């Protein structure tokens, strides 16, 4: 049955939470470990009309559904998207919109992205799926050398702005080296593309719609651990959340905490711990767009608090926290009360059995925060 589609998980223990809708993530977690975060839904949005409870993959489906309804040129393609996708993000779309609009491609990431660029060059909307962010590397040349540079090198005669690449991203509890990666830093170094990472279903739908409509090629990374674990009220109708705008999700005065994707929920909890145990008030920022990133919001916050902690699952060296840290020390040097702290994955490939030790969990973040306060 469905297990036939999990070829990439060969040799790795299959997660019951993925395959069997009836099993909850909590059940699966108790058998091995408790999830390292608690998803905190945002309050029900009021300004976009009727809402429905959706998890992350359903909010992605909803965004794709809205896009294909509005834009007759839009097509969705990639490996296994036709039957609904290995994470069910495209369920129902082929039946609704037809096999010329939602279709499988051969197993070839460089082909998927190259093909998507070509569709976008004609002005049609191309929504490409890379099955796991860990497999985006064969497409690196097409993304960095072609998509990102198409407009610039042609003097704006041609562009592939209507290309969006979506890909599951980040740790999932048991993904190991090749089902857990967060490769945003590789792409951050590439002018010409946008890289966007949502923390929740509501954010995901609005940001994904903005990526699809944006006139520049975008990469949208979807935290796979949140596909089922995150559920909240999401508007049924389309709406946009702006790109390159970070969100201050909690105001504070003593420390600025910055993260994106799943890690936002970790630092939110760290903010509570800091309040409770240390009486420290934290300002929590979800960066949302990695490039071009919202320097002003982060700097404004650090000027206020004087302390900055950035956290991501990706390895420390060359991770995106280093870019934020470098820019903030340039812009806010005299405001800093302590060195900027980065709490990240270790400089190793993403391990399997050691995942609980590898990830930048709330205890590591809390400890780094405590040291910053006591500096």
């Amino acid at each position, binding site marked *: 049955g469905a297990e036939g589609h999990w070829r990439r998980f060969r040799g790795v223990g299959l997660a019951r939470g993925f395959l069997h809708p009836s099993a909850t993530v909590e059940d699966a977690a108790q058998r091995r470990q408790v999830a390292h975060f608690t998803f905190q839904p945002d309050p029900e949005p009021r300004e976009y009309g009727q809402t429905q409870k959706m998890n992350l993959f359903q909010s992605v489906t909803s965004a794709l559904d809205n896009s294909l309804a509005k834009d007759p040129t839009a097509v969705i393609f990639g490996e296994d998207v036709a039957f609904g996708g290995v994470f069910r993000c495209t369920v129902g779309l082929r039946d609704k919109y037809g096999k010329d*609009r939602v279709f499988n*491609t051969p197993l070839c990431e460089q*082909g998927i992205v190259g093909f998507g*660029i070509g569709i976008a060059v*004609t002005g049609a909307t191309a929504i490409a799926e890379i099955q796991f962010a860990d497999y985006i590397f064969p497409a690196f040349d097409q993304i960095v050398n*072609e998509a990102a540079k198409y407009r610039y090198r*042609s*003097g704006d005669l041609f562009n592939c702005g209507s290309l969006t690449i979506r890909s599951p991203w980040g740790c999932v509890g048991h993904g190991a080296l090749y089902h857990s990666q967060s490769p945003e830093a590789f792409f951050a170094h590439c002018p010409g593309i946008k890289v966007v990472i949502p923390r929740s279903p509501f954010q995901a739908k609005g940001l994904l719609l903005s990526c699809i409509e944006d006139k520049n090629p975008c990469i949208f990374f979807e935290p796979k651990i949140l596909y089922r674990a995150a559920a909240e009220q999401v508007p049924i109708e389309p709406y946009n959340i702006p790109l390159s705008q970070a969100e201050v999700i909690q105001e504070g005065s003593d420390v600025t905490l910055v993260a994106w994707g799943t890690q936002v929920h970790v630092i939110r909890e760290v903010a509570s711990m800091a309040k409770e145990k240390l009486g420290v008030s934290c300002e929590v920022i979800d960066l949302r767009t990695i490039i071009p990133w919202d320097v002003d919001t982060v700097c404004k916050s650090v000027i206020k608090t004087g302390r900055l902690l950035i956290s991501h699952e990706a390895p420390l060296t060359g991770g995106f926290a280093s870019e934020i840290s470098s820019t903030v020390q340039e812009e806010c040097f005299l405001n800093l009360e302590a060195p900027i702290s980065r709490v990240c994955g270790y400089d190793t490939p993403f391990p399997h059995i050691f995942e609980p030790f590898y990830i930048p969990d709330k205890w590591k973040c809390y400890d780094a925060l405590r040291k910053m306060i006591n500096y």
Partner: protein
Amino acid sequence: MDSPSLRELQQPLLESTECETPAQKPGRHELGSALREIAFAESLRGLQFLSPPLPSVSAGLGEPRPPDVEHPHRQQQQFSSLDDKPQFPGASAEFIDKLEFIQPNVISGIPIYRVMDRQGQIINPSEDPHLPKEKVLKLYKSMTLLNTMDRILYESQRQGRISFYMTNYGEEGTHVGSAAALDNTDLVFGQYREAGVLMYRDYPLELFMAQCYGNISDLGKGRQMPVHYGCKERHFVTISSPLATQIPQAVGAAYAAKRANANRVVICYFGEGAASEGDAHAGFNFAATLECPIIFFCRNNGYAISTPTSEQYRGDGIAARGPGYGIMSIRVDGNDVFAVYNATKEARRRAVAENQPFLIEAMTYRIGHHSTSDDSSAYRSVDEVNYWDKQDHPISRLRHYLLSQGWWDEEQEKAWRKQSRKKVMEAFEQAERKPKPNPNLLFSDVYQEMPAQLRKQQESLARHLQTYGEHYPLEHFDK
């Protein structure tokens, strides 16, 4: 396409709306009576595309149904266990009980289609496309004007006037023969040695020169090395240096053209070296599986810089790969403008009518160096080069044809040489005199809108130039 109503489409999926699949253009297995130029097609008896030896895997099996988690009551294909025929989904073939490896045939490879002999005489009159005089003259003048421009621009690099150049010597026939067989609106994705396609589409000399000089008239705004042409008006996508990247892109564009019922073909040029790249494999496979109206045009010119074909591949060139992907394929004499024309014309007609890819491998020879950074005497003999230059050149062969038709003579040749050289020199001198674009154009078009951080960097350069401007070649740039 009979679209579902907008209202239907806007019903959110979570309420599971039904929707009809849109009407499809005939696929490759439904060759209706879409053949318009039947008389022309019938005359091309000698021109034969090599069909892939196996019928499509899914022919006769219908579209494979995905295993359905949601609806287990849906029936799967019924298989009979009494039948001794193979049941594997992966191939449509008979059993064999003799152990035999298929031997690749490189000794007598796929034959090379040609219309003219090396002296420009038509071999089989029924293959003569009978192009009108104006069209043949346009072919000839495009090739010769390109040749003249190549000589002057190559020389200008040697003199330090432009930084880099690539000539097209010996391959002009592949460019104009194919370009002449397309509609002007057919989208072209090239590699870097297809300037003749633009020349045939009347891209002005001024713009060729502007790009090579990177001056204010360059449509590309001075961002790329010379010969990286592009023209939106003439449907020629801007060239990029990485090889073969254009191949899957061209396939995507063809897919979009098919969806839009544009009745256009996309043509994608690449060399036999680029065909070794992964992107080429990706492009071929996607074009076939997704049924795209695309012509893959491979210029097999014998060398990839210094690497001869014997070190590039071990099979029967690029044409032999087509059937492996399920692609109609042909090998042609690339120095025979009419052969290139006929093959491209027929490929175009069928690609659009049948929504399937075609592969044309045009055999030719790179008479010039790879580029101004190359000296090919380091890896091949002058004799070899001279043979092609003197004995089998697309321009000479077409000129012989023109002469034998009485459409050209020595006097017109002399006059045209003088005129074309004069045109090129005038454009060249003008291009030299023009300033370069304003340095602000270094910063635009990275994104459609300029990000805040980039604007800060732009302002930083402006301030820097205010103080240190004397150390920069500002006098050559537009203010």
